[in-house]
């Protein structure tokens, strides 16, 4: 009973913290913002992301002198899907510019991502709610240039950065001691999964259709072996392998660079306090929940965590 009350109070105080801080407060004192001109070739933009070890960047349209949305791994997934259904269009894909990505979305019939944005001086809590509603895992912070009244992208906040900010600044996270299995925040039903031999193009379809950022790979007994993530698609394209899409997902995963930290797993007995501990210490983007024999039970994403902190209890 004591633990339940403590957790409730801790969540409320973390929520109050998120309402008392602004998105501007999360920004480091000095930081870089990498922006891509929309006339850049898609394949060049891939080099820029990989070179800078980032997976997303805001786009800037010099013709209108405005920001033109965010480049994310979903765009690369769209390009792969377009190419897979139009293998004769290699030339077009090779010469595709960033401002052509909208046409690709239309050609394969996917919804354009609705990137909500928010002013940096609004409460952090509001940015989280806006991000949750727009089902995107990142939100551009937009202000106005005082001379030209043009938009400025001040930065892009991600769920990961917000949870890290909470884990680093809220001691109350130590009082979240109820097991996650009791909180009804684990996504258990219809978690799309695949086998090591599944063709990587089928896994990419699963990522796109489910609008998820990772697909667990299980063996014939349902034991978790690995995970294919949306960001792995960048490595796939970089290697030019996307014209050999008959690869299995196991083979495609051999593209992963050696500094990949591995897939984080936990069980339903783990407490939110230890989950937040791990977020504080490492670059973890989701937790796969397994039973004691390693069989996949479900997944706990940063969205699930943030939703619980904002609206749970």
């Amino acid at each position: 009973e004591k633990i339940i009350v403590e957790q409730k109070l801790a969540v409320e105080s973390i929520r109050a913290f998120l309402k008392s801080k602004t998105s501007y407060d999360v920004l480091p004192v000095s930081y870089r913002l990498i922006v891509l001109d929309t006339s850049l070739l898609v394949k060049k933009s891939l080099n820029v992301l990989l070179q800078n070890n980032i997976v997303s960047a805001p786009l800037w349209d010099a013709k209108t002198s405005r920001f033109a949305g965010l480049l994310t791994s979903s765009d690369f997934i769209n390009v792969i899907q377009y190419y897979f259904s139009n293998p004769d269009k290699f030339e077009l894909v090779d010469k595709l510019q960033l401002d052509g990505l909208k046409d690709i979305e239309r050609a394969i019939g996917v919804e354009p991502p609705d990137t909500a944005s928010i002013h940096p001086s609004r409460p952090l809590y509001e940015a989280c709610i806006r991000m949750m509603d727009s089902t995107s895992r990142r939100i551009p912070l937009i202000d106005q240039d005082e001379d030209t009244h043009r938009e400025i992208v001040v930065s892009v906040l991600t769920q990961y950065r917000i949870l890290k900010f909470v884990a680093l600044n809220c001691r109350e996270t130590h009082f979240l001691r109820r097991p996650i299995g009791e909180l009804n925040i684990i996504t258990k039903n219809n978690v799309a999964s695949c086998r090591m031999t599944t063709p990587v193009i089928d896994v990419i379809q699963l990522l796109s259709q489910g609008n998820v950022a990772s697909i667990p790979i299980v063996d014939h007994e349902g034991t978790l072996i690995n995970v294919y993530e949306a960001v792995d698609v960048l490595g796939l394209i970089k290697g030019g392998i996307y014209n050999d899409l008959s690869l299995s997902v196991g083979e495609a995963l051999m593209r992963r660079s050696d500094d990949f930290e591995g897939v984080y797993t936990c069980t339903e007995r783990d407490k939110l306090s230890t989950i937040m501990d791990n977020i504080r210490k490492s670059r973890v983007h989701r937790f796969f929940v397994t039973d004691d024999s390693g069989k996949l039970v479900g997944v706990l994403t940063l969205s699930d965590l943030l939703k619980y902190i904002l609206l749970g209890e």
Partner: protein
Amino acid sequence: LATSSIKHNTLCVASIVRYKRKYVTQILYAPL
């Protein structure tokens, strides 16, 4: 203005700008 060497026919320029009390290095990648 800060510039970096041209690689893959891509230009990279940057400016360090103060935003309120923080400093943003705004970096732009554009095709040569």
